[in-house]
């Protein structure tokens, strides 16, 4: 067969290289001899015959090289030789090599690490069956609540009427259970999810052990059942499958364990530790309500159905409900959908993409810097190249050598970078535990392939950029030029300056981004929550309904708790509330004002609801602006007082005294407005919203709230009070677990930690880029300085003032920096739009940030240029001219 023969020829070429080379020599020598013989026969002299034969033949060495190039495998050998040469020539200049490799490693490492994170978190599909068909479903309320949670009743209608979905499931966003201890274990609060029985089927997952929920489990009359997560099962139940069929106590009620999910499964959150059937857990009223938007819904599209079709169908169903209940303004008007992945990633997407873009910029800067270093190196080797070309070295060979050198650099940098990426990813995972899908981040073949691609790209980019300077080189001028050192390498300097301008431009973009994020972070940290945060300790607890079924029991517990905690030495004040400021939105409720005319159909008034004990405002230092706090007798059914926030008054009582008016809210019960208090923020980054405070001991719906946050304020280090406080709770009820023991400062810190992380990381890249750019400026100007030694020497000898020389040199260096700055500012204006979502209290085109960046850059550039410029201006003309 032809190919076997071909392979044989190739193998021969590979293994008998030396023999083949000798034979090629013979062949060519034979040719030349024949030609010489012929020439002699034609009557030429011996020398002439040789000369004419060689002229007809061309350069024998080049012909040999070109011929060898056709020998299939010889290329491998060639590449190995080139790599060896490249490595050797780098070895001779270890300082240059180390700096270049380090810079490359930083760039490739950072980019690879960020790519790994982005790939695992954003690009990788969810680990469910056919994840592309999974949608998260929302109600569309209005443009404020674009992606609103769904109400149980709306979901029921979707389930009944929709045709585009093969499965629809509903679950509660976040539920906490008190898991009672057995056999000496402490009780514990665990995060769970209530879900409809088909949630697992919708996602397409099977339990690792046991069974899934059935429709029979998922109704009010069924026995209580629970499915455990792998982690909880291992940790709490020793990984014994005998737990299946046994009962555990959740909120003081018995639940039968029916299944254990596989280790990789984490939904809806990666902290979800158990699942319970939602129609068994939630009151039927709640699951039929059309206006209580408390749940999350997901759906699996039927094969062939599109997201748009699915959404349209759901929207029609909601619209119809809206029309049927025009008197209730809280029934939504439409539906929205989003791929499930988008919902899971949530807010992590923009910052990650921004950081990836930043690392990309940084890598580009690193490449430009290395390219610039290579160009400078080229300059010193220019003469060598010219001589080699004069001796007949092929231009292609020189280019290849060039590329292999940058290739060696990139490979070394890439290897170091990959190791660095590994370390960075470990660090990232440990610092960003709260980020969605952080547990999926890992290095795999794709990442290694990506790094290899980066290496190749960097090698080609730096190699080609620096090779631009040898292209079309005139041999003679460069030999001449190299012998004298004035006005040398103009083109090369120009190229380096362009590279520098680009580098400076990218640096400016990074600096602007970092500046904006830092300013935004500072705004966040200085934002006033509206209450005292110093030395305030908070902890969560919730009273299980089974043990505290009556409202009076809960009231007694809260009052006993507060009484005892307030008696602790060191405690200034203590209070109990559903949520302290900064902890989150909680829930809201519509209300009407009894003294106002009824609202037009379709309009609504909304307030965030907080349940607080009467001492709340004093304890957290929230000012009472008008009126007073609750009376002490506000208990259970007798409770009929409400306190409102300034924002609520501003919005719903414009130009009116709200005191003594009545709010008709939850259950349409009238609550009398007792006082107006200062605004507080539900989250640091949210502006204050209208808020109403109901007495903690009020009995509505299913009675007094079953849990919330205990806040303790002290005038000294409050963390020392954590243990005594927990001991009091233990004494009151040994079965009651406590969770999230945090100071207010920690709560604020947690909610701003992402902002600080993004800002810090971007700042780090920006500073590194600035250092690289400064080093580049310094390098170019130093080079220019040595190149122009003679010229400057002559100038000074002829009477040029030294400060004139200084100005000349400074101008030379600052010009590319100026061009870069202009480029960067333009880039910044275009680029900051991308991070608008990440900014709080700062506009993307914040003038002060842009000005500050420009000043910093000019200062750094000036400093980088000053030294070489000073050196040039202090030149001794005699010394400089004698160098010739």
């Amino acid at each position, binding site marked *: 067969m*032809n190919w076997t*023969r*071909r392979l044989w*020829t*190739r193998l021969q*070429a590979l293994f008998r290289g030396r023999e083949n080379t000798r*034979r*090629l020599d*013979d*062949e*060519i020598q*034979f*040719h030349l*001899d*024949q*030609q010489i*013989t012929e020439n002699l026969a034609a009557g030429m002299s011996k020398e002439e015959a040789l000369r004419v034969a060689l*002229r*007809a*033949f*061309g*350069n024998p060495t*080049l*012909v*040999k090289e*070109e*011929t060898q*190039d*056709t*020998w*299939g495998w010889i290329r491998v050998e060639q590449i190995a030789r080139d790599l060896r040469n490249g490595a050797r020539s780098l070895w001779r200049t270890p300082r240059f090599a180390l700096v270049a490799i380090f810079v490359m490693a930083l760039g490739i490492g950072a980019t690879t690490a960020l790519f790994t994170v982005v790939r695992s978190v954003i690009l990788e599909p969810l680990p469910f069956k056919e994840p592309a068909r999974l949608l998260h479903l929302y109600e569309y309320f209005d443009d404020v609540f674009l992606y609103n949670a769904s109400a149980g009743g709306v979901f029921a209608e979707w389930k009944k009427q929709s045709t585009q979905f093969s499965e629809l499931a509903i679950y509660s966003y976040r539920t906490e259970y008190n898991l009672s201890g057995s056999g000496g274990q402490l009780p514990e609060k665990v995060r769970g999810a209530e879900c409809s029985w088909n949630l697992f089927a919708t996602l397409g997952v099977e339990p690792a052990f046991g069974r899934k929920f059935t429709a029979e489990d998922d109704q009010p009359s069924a026995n209580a059942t629970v499915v455990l997560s792998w982690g909880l099962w291992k940790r709490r139940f020793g990984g014994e499958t005998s737990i299946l069929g046994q009962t555990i106590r959740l909120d003081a009620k018995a639940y039968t364990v029916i299944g254990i999910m596989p280790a990789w499964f984490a939904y809806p959150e990666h902290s979800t530790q158990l699942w319970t059937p939602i129609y068994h857990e939630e009151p039927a009223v709640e699951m039929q309500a059309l206006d209580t938007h408390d749940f999350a819904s997901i759906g699996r599209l039927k094969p062939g159905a599109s997201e748009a079709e699915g959404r349209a169908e759901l929207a029609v169903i909601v619209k119809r409900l809206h029309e049927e209940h025009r008197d209730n303004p809280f029934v939504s008007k439409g539906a929205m959908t989003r791929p499930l992945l988008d919902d899971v990633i949530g807010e992590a997407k923009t910052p990650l993409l921004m950081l990836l873009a930043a690392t990309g910029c940084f890598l580009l800067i690193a490449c430009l810097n290395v390219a610039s270093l290579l160009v400078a190196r080229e300059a010193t080797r220019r003469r060598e190249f010219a001589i080699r070309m004069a001796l007949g070295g092929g231009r292609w060979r020189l280019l290849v050598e060039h590329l292999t050198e940058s290739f060696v650099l990139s490979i070394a940098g890439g290897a170091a970078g990959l190791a660095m990426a590994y370390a960075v990813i470990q660090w990232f995972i440990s610092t960003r535990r709260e980020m969605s899908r952080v547990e999926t981040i890992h290095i795999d073949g794709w990442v290694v392939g990506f790094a290899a691609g980066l290496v190749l790209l960097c090698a080609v980019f730096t190699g080609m950029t620096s090779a631009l300077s040898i292209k079309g080189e005139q041999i003679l001028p460069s030999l001449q030029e190299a012998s004298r050192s004035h006005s040398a390498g103009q083109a090369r300097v120009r190229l380096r300056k362009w590279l520098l301008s680009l580098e400076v431009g990218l640096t400016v973009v990074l600096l602007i981004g970092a500046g904006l994020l830092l300013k935004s972070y500072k705004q966040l940290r200085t934002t006033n929550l509206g209450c005292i945060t110093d030395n305030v300790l908070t902890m969560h607890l919730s009273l299980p309904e089974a043990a505290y079924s009556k409202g009076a029991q809960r009231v007694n517990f809260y009052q006993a708790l507060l009484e005892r905690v307030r008696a602790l030495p060191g405690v200034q004040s203590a209070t109990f509330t559903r949520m302290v400021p900064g902890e989150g939105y909680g829930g809201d409720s519509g209300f009407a004002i009894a003294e106002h005319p009824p609202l037009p159909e379709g309009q609504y008034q909304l307030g965030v609801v907080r349940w607080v004990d009467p001492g709340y405002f004093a304890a957290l230092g929230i000012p009472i602006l008008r009126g007073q706090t609750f009376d002490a007798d506000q208990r259970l059914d007798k409770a009929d007082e409400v306190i409102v926030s300034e924002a609520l008054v501003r919005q719903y009582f414009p130009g009116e005294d709200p005191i003594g008016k009545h709010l008709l809210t939850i259950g349409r019960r009238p609550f009398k407005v007792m006082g107006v208090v200062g605004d507080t923020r539900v989250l640091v980054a949210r502006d204050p919203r209208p808020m109403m405070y109901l007495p903690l001991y009020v009995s509505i719906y299913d009675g007094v709230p079953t849990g919330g946050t205990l806040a303790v304020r002290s005038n000294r280090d409050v963390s020392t009070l954590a243990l005594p406080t927990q001991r009091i709770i233990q004494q009151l009820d040994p079965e009651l677990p406590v969770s999230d023991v945090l100071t207010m400062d920690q709560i604020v810190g947690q909610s701003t930690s992402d902002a600080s992380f993004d800002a810090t990381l971007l700042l780090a890249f920006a500073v590194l880029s600035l250092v690289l750019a400064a080093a580049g400026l310094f390098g170019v100007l130093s080079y220019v300085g040595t190149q122009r030694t003679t010229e400057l020497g002559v100038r000074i000898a002829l009477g040029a003032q030294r400060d004139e020389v200084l100005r000349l040199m400074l101008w030379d260096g600052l010009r590319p920096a100026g061009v870069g700055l202009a480029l960067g500012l333009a880039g910044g204006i275009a680029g900051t739009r991308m991070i608008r979502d990440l900014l709080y209290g700062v506009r993307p085109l914040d003038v002060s940030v842009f000005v500050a960046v420009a000043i910093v850059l000019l200062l750094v550039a000036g400093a980088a240029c000053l030294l070489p410029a000073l050196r040039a201006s202090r030149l001794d003309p005699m010394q400089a001219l004698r160098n010739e």
Partner: protein
Amino acid sequence: MGKPNDLVQGTLDLLILKTISLEPKHGWAIAKRIQQISGEVLQVQQGSLYPALHRLEQRCWIKAKWKESETGRKAKFYSLTAAGRAQLEKEAENWNRLSAAINLVVETS
């Protein structure tokens, strides 16, 4: 190294294949032969001959053997393989079609 009679790109292969189709020849003889037959019109650039020969050999269209030449020295003789003969036919046919077409254009217009 005169340029005027440079061979049309790719035709060198055809000429080589054709030249050695009757009997095995060494490189110098191939160059010489092409020059003679074409009435000195085609000057093979000797420098490009050897890379071409070795490329053809790598493709297994020609094979080489070291034999004594007419002068008694050992020389590398190239001859066609079966695949080479097929290739020659194909390329000759291509060439005929192309040159006929060019002729047609040149003569009618």
